[in-house]
């Protein structure tokens, strides 16, 4: 065993060398930025192939195949990094053209991303296909784009060969692109119904989650934030500091300093997505990295809600990404407040450290909330609602005001958590007062009366943790109290255990059960108040969706109900109107999640 060998049995993770951003993002010393990525240790087959990912290097249509790479010296329980600082070639261009390195880069970033989700949700996450491995194809097609294809159970990465004065471009070498596409695959495994035809927020959330994970997870890579912020002598200079400190009113000065620092932090490559692809698409601005998207600069306002350009999922997603990134820089700048300012700036180690903490915390808040999102019919307001609720359950006090900052950032974009949508048995949120309930087309089911609140009689609490039938019985017995009209087709789709650890080490064991309600009716027979839009064929049934999440604690007690009622007249009308405008073209199994989209003027 050579010095670089790492034993896969004795460690939880191994360090694999990857490009921390992409080959064009350089340190102050003009060197490409590498990272030693922590990848869960497992037995590695040639490919690389582990128990969740399988890299297959084949060209679609051309059948050009690169032999699978072997990342060990014969013992599958060891791993050897052939590209660590001591072994990689000095010329990064050689690395870029090395198919073996590309395979490792892709595998490592993908595995790291999945581990991030699984750590925060406290359980393994299945792929939508229910096969153990997701395929990763590093040189699938000739294009500067990549996409997750559900029908292939694969993420296909594009590449462009070098031509003229342009070097080659491999999307499988871009951390952001890999993290983005793998996040699509992960969310599709968690919430497969988000690809059903629905309101525009649903697909936009797919894009937003993918962008946020890509951007925030980079922070957690050791030293990456530090090396990107470093001006070369271990310091970072905030140009506004001096003026802020001169302000006679100390309070005002502090506020200004935080604001100006936040503005500076916004401009780092850390908040930019897919620099190399971006550079190919937009002319370079001296002193500024190109980027495919720089959502952090989106002005906070609710103007997007009426702008048709924001119906396109990637564009719409920028609203959520901006809310998160603007919260990030605000939290980050606030955490810098106690740091000492020297003449030549602030210690970059400390600045980076605070950035890493802020990013990790914020990303954790989002990922821990995924189980609380409704299984169908997601809207942006549900996202902030789920994030705040999940965080409250894990960290009851919020001394640094993260929740307030996030709530404020969303509110600035006109997104506020719906009142009383999540019903919490603890009494945090009571069921809606009768007067404010959304109008329903039918009277309550007279057979569903529940006596004396939630009933647990006849339930097998052990089965409740795993069995959809048992959870359905719980719904059946408590239909009235839960406000679920079981006269409609209702199905419990999943029952899962989740173990989450909060920021101060609190462990929360919960059982999460998703149910879906489906209503199919001819346009003429839709429930009263729900109107079929013009142009709908009279003989084709319309499908309405609703559903929710039931959360039980470790003692089998009901704790929380996230509800998207199928008979929400207002939402269903908005959805039908929106789908009618789109010509009922959204959705379908073959939907592909690509990094980029086509022009907005297409008819």
């Amino acid at each position, binding site marked *: 065993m050579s010095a670089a060998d790492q034993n896969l049995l004795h460690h939880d993770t191994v360090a694999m060398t990857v490009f921390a951003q992409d080959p064009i993002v350089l340190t102050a010393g003009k060197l490409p930025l590498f990272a030693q990525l922590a990848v869960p240790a497992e037995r590695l087959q040639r490919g690389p192939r582990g128990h969740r990912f399988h890299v297959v290097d084949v060209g679609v249509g051309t059948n050009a195949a690169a032999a699978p790479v072997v990342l060990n010296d014969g013992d599958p329980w060891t791993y050897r990094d052939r590209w660590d600082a001591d072994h990689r070639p000095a010329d990064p261009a050689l690395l870029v053209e090395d198919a073996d390195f590309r395979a490792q880069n892709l595998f490592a970033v993908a595995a790291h991303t999945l581990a991030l989700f699984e750590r925060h949700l406290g359980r393994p996450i299945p792929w939508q296909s229910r096969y153990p491995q997701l395929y990763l194809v590093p040189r699938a097609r000739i294009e500067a784009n990549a996409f997750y294809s559900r029908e292939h159970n694969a993420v296909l990465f594009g590449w462009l060969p070098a031509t003229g004065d342009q070097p080659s471009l491999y999307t499988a070498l871009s951390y952001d692109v890999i993290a983005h596409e793998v996040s699509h695959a992960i969310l599709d495994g968690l919430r497969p119904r988000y690809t059903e035809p629905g309101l525009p927020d649903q697909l936009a959330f797919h894009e937003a989650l993918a962008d946020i994970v890509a951007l925030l997870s980079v922070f957690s890579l050791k030293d990456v934030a530090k090396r990107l912020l470093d001006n070369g002598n271990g310091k970072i200079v905030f140009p506004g500091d001096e003026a802020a400190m001169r302000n006679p009113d100390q309070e005002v000065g502090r506020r200004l300093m935080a604001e100006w620092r936040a503005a500076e932090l916004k401009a780092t490559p850390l908040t930019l997505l897919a620099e190399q692809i971006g550079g190919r698409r937009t002319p370079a601005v001296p002193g500024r990295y190109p980027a495919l998207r720089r959502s952090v600069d989106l002005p906070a306002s609710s103007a997007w809600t009426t702008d048709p350009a924001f119906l396109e999922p990637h564009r719409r997603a920028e609203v959520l990404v901006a809310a998160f990134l603007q919260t990030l820089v605000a939290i980050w700048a606030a955490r810098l407040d106690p740091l000492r300012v020297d003449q030549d700036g602030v210690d970059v180690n400390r600045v980076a450290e605070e950035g890493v903490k802020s990013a990790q915390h914020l990303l954790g808040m989002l990922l821990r909330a995924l189980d609380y999102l409704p299984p169908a019919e997601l809207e942006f307001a549900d996202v902030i609602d789920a994030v705040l609720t999940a965080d409250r359950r894990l960290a009851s006090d919020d001394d640094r005001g993260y929740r307030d900052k996030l709530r404020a950032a969303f509110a600035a974009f006109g997104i506020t958590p719906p009142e009383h949508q999540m019903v919490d048995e603890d009494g945090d949120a009571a069921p809606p007062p009768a007067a404010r309930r959304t109008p329903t087309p039918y009277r309550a089911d007279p057979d569903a009366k529940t006596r004396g609140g939630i009933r647990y009689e006849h339930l097998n609490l052990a089965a409740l943790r795993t069995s959809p039938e048992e959870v359905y019985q719980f719904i059946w017995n408590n239909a009235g109290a839960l406000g679920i009209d079981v006269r409609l087709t209702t199905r419990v789709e999943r029952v899962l255990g989740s173990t989450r650890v909060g920021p101060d080490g609190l462990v929360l064991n919960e059982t999460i059960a998703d149910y879906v309600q489906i209503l199919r009716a001819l346009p003429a027979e839709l429930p009263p108040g729900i109107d079929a839009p013009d142009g709908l064929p009279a003989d084709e049934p319309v499908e309405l969706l609703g559903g929710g999440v039931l959360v039980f604690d470790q003692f089998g007690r009901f704790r929380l109900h996230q509800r998207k009622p199928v008979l929400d007249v207002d939402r269903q009308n908005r959805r039908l109107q929106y789908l009618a405008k789109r010509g009922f073209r959204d959705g379908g199994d073959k939907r592909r999640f690509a990094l980029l989209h086509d022009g*907005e003027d297409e008819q």
Partner: protein
Amino acid sequence: MSTPSRVRLRAYKVGFGDCLLLTMTYRSKLPDGRTERHVLIDCGSVARADDGPRMAEVAELIAEHSGGQLDAVVATHRHRDHVGGFGDARAGETLDRLKPRLVIRPWTDVPESERDQLDDDQRHFLGILDQLPAQAERLGLFAFDSVAQAKRAARLAELGFKNAAAIARLEGWASDSKAHYVTAGETIDVEAELPGVKIQVLGPPTLKDVPALTRYAKESEEYWLGLAGDSALAELLQPSGTATPARARRTLAQPGGVGAAEWLLRNLDERRVSQGLEIVEALDDVLNNTSVILLVTIGSRRILLPGDAQAENWSRTLDQLKTNRRLATALGKVDLYKVGHHGSRNATPKRLTAHWAQSAHPVTSLLTTKRGVFEKSREGAVPKPELIDGLAALGPVHNTDDLPPDVWWLDLEAPTRGPANFAATPGPPVR
């Protein structure tokens, strides 16, 4: 000053292609003794109408209908379905006799000898355009997933084949008389040739105005263009002699080609997205985007002639709608619209139809197309039903493909003043 009293747009039934004769009628004699002026807008086809005329016959009709004199010829872009007729030996000879007094073409068609007036970027772009025909001929040989795809690709590639004879004839006319190589934003002075007619150019924009013209929609296309220029594209997309599916399976799906990757390899192969077709479509769009877009104003009638312009070509004009009041008003009052790109996807921008819907001015649409020439692709049929429905909501839609048997043209005629709009009259049956 003489002003026309009536205007007529005559669309010949050439099948899949454009051949339009715009005729202005004047109340009194013009200085040369005629009372009419004639503009020929494109003349080409890639799929003749089943009962329609040959190109030579179309040219004879044009000679007859124009009284032996063409005052202007517009060649919107270099595709066969728009200029093929100029290259046809017999049709060309007939048109030569009509001695066009003015030739209007896009700036991208400036003859070789005048290219030194362009900047480096523009010359580079034109260099790529010059490579396209050869590339198109090669692309037709690609391996495609299905017969339908191969057919569509071959059709598209054929559009871009070299049209040397047509280009030579247009350049000959230009040197004998006058030529305008136009860019978006200019107004062509045609008072001498077409009194009382105003021609505004809405496209193509310059590369500086819309860099996306070369690099639009997806970065990859510029690459494909670059590669097409280097002739390196075919090798990258074609399976080479040694790369066979069986070899890929043996390499990647161990053991023995039946391992877990076999499922992926089979599925990618069966349901792959054909890159070949996408590239053929992309290169086709590059030429479409060089289309001249003309807004012709005669009295209070406005006719919009966009050739095959795609969204990227339109973008400069549409971006100005919010700030340029006069342009917005003029475009909002279009009476007659020659539907862009035979009614295909991406040629009639949503912003344009939305602008019309908002201005509530009725728009008569004219489609010059032939159904079934382009098989349904991922993007849908040509003409596209959703687009036609949308246009029908704005006003009448006429289609040369709907003309009765043996009727070889369709007239859309209107007085140049007053509220009356364009009335459609099919020509007489020829047999």
